[in-house]
């Protein structure tokens, strides 16, 4: 029996290759995600271990707010006074204790005038330490005076800078000029751990610019005397210092450092695996269809085997055996293709990690085969059962495809569809705990897709009839339309694959369009600025003097600078705040009072939103104690509660207070309102001139700003399109496959048509119409399902920024048009094949 299965496998190589391609692409997506992220994660671990190798224990001050494992920069770090170093050095077993100055936020202006940005890695500013065993000078020296800095090789390359060059650095203070005294890399020849930039100042400069206070340290690096383990030393130091300090072994530090990266990598992995899942799901339809058709073609052969005594189990096993072989071969190909894609992704997205090496991690290999084989076997279940039901007598009959009732499958589909829609509604509008929402939602979407796919056959005939009417003006068109309605199950399966891809594409399009429309509406309603000062990143700032000077320009009505800062409440929870000149901000940001007064704030007064008031149980006149970065604990009195705003909901304090309390004493965002009739162009030019020293911020009109924002949404959207395109490609392969098999099945019919005078061209047109009808059918379903999903999600997020629903009709029309192109494209090879049908061979039956 296996020999028969093997033989039939070999004789249908091409067919199986096509169905296998779906598995290959799916496995490729899975394995590339795993290979890339696992390899990177391993190499990050080792790199962090390396840079901490020369330290045994690290001491830091307990941050004001708990870091809860997130970004440590936002945990409001506290700094160490010199006496802490003396106390640590005095602990028995300590060999050396060195104070370090180390913080994110040293931004360097490149030679082209633009600030060097890193995608993810920090931009560090440190105090130079000779011979710390980590940094290794390549040229020049460390900074010898306060106007010198040493920079790492990444900066030297990006600048480009060489020793002796002047370099401008933005820190907690406005832009300052230095001379490059030296360039360093990491010991071991690496440029950096992960593409981070480092500026090394002298200690006093680093303390002032990076930590904002003279004479303090961000951490103490401790080495152990011989005979002391890091763990023993840690216990001893922690005991000696008492409360208020965090003491960790270098192993723990490395783990914490890499945790950030690992978190990003695991998110990235989940993202890629999500798309791999979609690809595989779509692939199942293709494989299922191929196996079904192959078995339909082999009805006689299977019946013969049955009449010769093969049991039903044997037939099932032989189909599974074929599926197994296809699965294993495809998984192997997919695994190797995945390695290639991982290498490509690495060079595109992680080019600064050239040191990281990719390898076939066990997880990737196991997942590739498990997923590939499982998906193929799942797809083969239905065809296998169908094959086993072939009656022995069918060998003697002419195998006419008997049409089976579609009632059962339609009912099953409707039930799944209802369950899925219920699940989606439950996830979106119910009160599930946060962690299960996405799971229920995904399951719901999966059920909806399966349900729609099962219902599709029963709507295929009428819908295909309607779609095909557009092509019925010619005979080949009519024949093509009829052919596509001929086997509703097959047409439906083929179209369903396209439906899924397009539904997801349409869904995210609806989300993006709604997000953009909502954003635009919000800005229109809440923002009445003529000009905005926009930072390029979260830590970008500009000189506060600029706002004062803008206010003095003729034609300017109001100008505000917004200071971002974080404080901690008594429990150590972070509280984000904004400092601004409220009196000037009222007409620009349209702030209205809900309770109390919205007016210029006095010292230690605060305006809060309704959400904040509810969350903290505050009202007008009540007070709250908050720990600030620069001035310790302060008590703020609530002056008023402002009416709900989409753009911000954090507590507001005066800009004077902000400069006193926040870590950064410079504003990041700004807004300007002009007097009626003012020359906007001229004023914009002047503001741009004032901001020449702050290359991280740009001036934009409100319209430009809105455009920038929607541009960001569109960038994400385009990325999603690119990833979802994989699912569409598989669907196209499905159409090609179905058509090719149909041509094969109908060779005699084609021969007869050609014999009675159908030209080659018309035969090609007939196949093309069939293809276009199938693909438009899938597209229409996809657009409908996708719009439904998109609308549901938008409605569910109504109170989270999606207050407007926008359906991108033009874009959807384009998708419909593209589906025609897809149909035309998919038809090319099958149509050529149909045109080449040898009339004589097709009609002879001897």
């Amino acid at each position: 029996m296996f020999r028969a299965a093997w033989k039939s496998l070999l004789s249908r190589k091409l067919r199986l290759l096509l169905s296998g391609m779906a598995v290959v692409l799916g496995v490729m997506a899975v394995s590339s995600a795993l290979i890339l992220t696992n390899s990177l994660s391993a190499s990050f671990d080792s790199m962090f271990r390396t840079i901490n190798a020369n330290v045994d224990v690290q001491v830091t001050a307990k941050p004001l707010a708990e870091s809860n494992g997130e970004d440590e920069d936002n945990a409001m770090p506290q700094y160490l006074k010199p006496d802490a170093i003396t106390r640590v050095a005095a602990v028995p077993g300590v060999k050396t204790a060195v104070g370090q100055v180390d913080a994110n936020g040293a931004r360097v202006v490149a030679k082209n005038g633009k600030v060097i940005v890193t995608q993810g890695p920090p931009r560090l500013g440190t105090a130079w330490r000779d011979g710390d065993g980590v940094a290794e000078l390549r040229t020049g020296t460390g900074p010898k005076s306060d106007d010198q800095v040493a920079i790492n090789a990444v900066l030297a390359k990006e600048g480009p800078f060489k020793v002796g060059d002047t370099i401008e650095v933005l820190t907690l203070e406005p832009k300052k000029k230095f001379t490059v005294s030296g360039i360093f890399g990491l010991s071991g020849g690496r440029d950096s751990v992960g593409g981070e930039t480092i500026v090394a100042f002298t200690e006093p400069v680093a303390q002032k610019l990076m930590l904002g206070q003279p004479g303090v340290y961000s951490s103490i690096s401790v080495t152990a005397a011989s005979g002391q383990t890091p763990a023993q030393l840690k216990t001893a130091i922690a005991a000696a210092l008492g409360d208020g300090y965090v003491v960790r072994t270098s192993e723990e530090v490395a783990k914490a450092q890499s945790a950030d990266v690992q978190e990003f990598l695991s998110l990235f992995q989940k993202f890629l695996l999500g798309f791999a899942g979609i690809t595989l799901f779509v692939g199942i339809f293709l494989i299922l269809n191929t196996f079904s058709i192959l078995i339909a073609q082999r009805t006689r052969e299977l019946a013969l085997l049955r009449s010769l005594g093969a049991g039903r189990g044997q037939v099932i096993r032989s189909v599974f055996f074929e599926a197994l072989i296809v699965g294993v071969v495809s998984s192997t190909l997919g695994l190797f293709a995945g390695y290639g894609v991982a290498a490509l992704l690495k060079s595109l997205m992680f080019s600064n990690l050239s040191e990281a090496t990719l390898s076939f991690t066990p997880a990737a290999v196991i997942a590739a085969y498990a997923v590939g084989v499982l998906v193929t076997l799942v797809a083969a279940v239905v065809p296998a059962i169908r094959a086993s039901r072939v009656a022995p007598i069918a060998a003697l009959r002419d195998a006419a495809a008997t049409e089976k009732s579609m009632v059962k499958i339609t009912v099953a589909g409707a039930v799944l569809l209802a369950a899925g829609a219920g699940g989606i509604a439950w996830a979106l509008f119910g009160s599930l705990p946060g962690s299960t929402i996405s799971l229920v939602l995904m399951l719901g979407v999966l059920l909806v897709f399966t349900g729609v796919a099962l219902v599709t056959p029963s709507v295929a005939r009428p819908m295909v009839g309607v779609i095909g009417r557009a092509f019925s003006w010619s005979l080949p068109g009519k024949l093509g339309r009829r052919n596509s309605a001929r086997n509703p199950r097959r047409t439906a399966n083929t179209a369903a694959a396209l439906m899924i891809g397009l539904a997801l594409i349409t869904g995210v399009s609806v989300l993006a369009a709604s997000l953009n429309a909502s954003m635009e509406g919000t800005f229109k309603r809440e923002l009445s600025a003529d000009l905005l000062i926009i930072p390029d990143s979260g830590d970008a700032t500009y000189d506060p003097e600029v706002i004062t000077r803008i206010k003095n320009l003729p034609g300017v009505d109001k100008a505000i600078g917004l200071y971002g800062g974080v404080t901690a409440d008594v429990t150590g929870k972070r509280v984000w705040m904004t400092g601004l000149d409220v009196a000037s901000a009222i007409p620009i940001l349209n702030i209205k009072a809900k309770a109390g007064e919205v007016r210029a704030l006095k010292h230690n007064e605060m305006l809060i939103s309704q959400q904040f008031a509810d969350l903290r149980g505050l009202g007008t006149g009540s007070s709250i104690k908050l720990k600030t970065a620069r001035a310790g604990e302060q008590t703020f009195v609530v002056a008023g509660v402002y009416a709900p705003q989409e753009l911000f909901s954090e507590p507001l304090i005066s800009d004077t207070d902000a400069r006193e309390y926040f870590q950064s004493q410079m504003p990041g965002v700004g807004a300007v309102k002009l007097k009626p009739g003012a020359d906007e162009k001229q004023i914009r030019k002047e503001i741009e001139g004032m901001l020449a020293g702050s290359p991280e911020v740009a001036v934009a009109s409100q319209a430009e700003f809105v455009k920038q924002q929607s541009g960001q949404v569109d960038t994400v959207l385009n990325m999603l399109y690119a990833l979802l395109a994989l699912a569409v490609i598989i669907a196209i392969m499905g159409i090609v496959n179905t058509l090719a098999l149909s041509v094969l099945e109908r060779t005699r019919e084609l021969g007869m048509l050609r014999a009675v005078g159908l030209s080659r061209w018309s035969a090609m047109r007939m196949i093309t119409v069939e293809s276009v009808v199938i693909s438009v059918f899938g597209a229409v379903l996809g657009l409908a399902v996708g719009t439904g999903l998109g609308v549901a999600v938008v409605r569910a997020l109504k109170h989270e920024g999606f207050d407007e629903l926008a359906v991108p009709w033009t874009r959807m029309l384009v998708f419909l048009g593209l589906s025609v192109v897809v149909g035309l494209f998919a038809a090319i090879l099958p149509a050529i094949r149909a045109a080449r049908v040898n009339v004589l061979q097709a009609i002879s039956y001897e």
Partner: protein
Amino acid sequence: MTSTAVAARADEVWKVYGSGEAQVIALGGVSVSLARGEFTAIMGPSGSGKSTLMHCLAGLDTVTRGEVHVGDTKVTGMSDRQLTALRRDKVGFIFQQFNLLPTLTAEENILLPLSIAGRKADQAWFDTVIRTVGLADRLRHKPTELSGGQQQRVACARALVGRPEVIFADEPTGNLDSRSGAEVLGFLRNSVRQYNQTIVMVTHDPNAASYADRVVFLADGHIAGELRNPTADAVLDTMKRLDGAGAH
């Protein structure tokens, strides 16, 4: 109607497959003329080349040497496009099976060649044909809803409705029971008698051949004889003789 009395003819037609040792001669210089308004049957044992001859005459297959004419038109040397047009406009076909498109109704199947050509049917002639084949109440049916005999009658109507120069029928009764076969054959003979249609039928059934006006016998790629106004017995005798000759 064209002036010549010959609907189709083959002149010294050779059909050779392969070359050298593996060479097979399917037709070895066959010349035959098919008179207009006549029902001709081509008979011969398996491998005699009768189907090949028909395929060559119908423009379905190319000849190695010699010439084929349909009416006044020289078929030999035509391009695929010209051959397609010839089959569409001047030739009708009836095959043993797979005659009809399952997606089309009986009526649509009958009108298929005309639709392909983009021509309208002559309504009076269409009605006549339908009446003759007795399918008036079956026009809206799909092929799967028709019996084998009915399907074959639809195929006959399809061949007739375009009034082709000549209809080629390849074992048209091969898949039918004798009663349905007789119906179809009677109908073919009628259309020759009543409407002056030219029909060429390939068959190995002496009984079917007896419906023809003339039987041309083929053996080993050569014309091996002919009978006019044959009876089934006469055909059978000739066949036996040919088989016997072939056995030596």
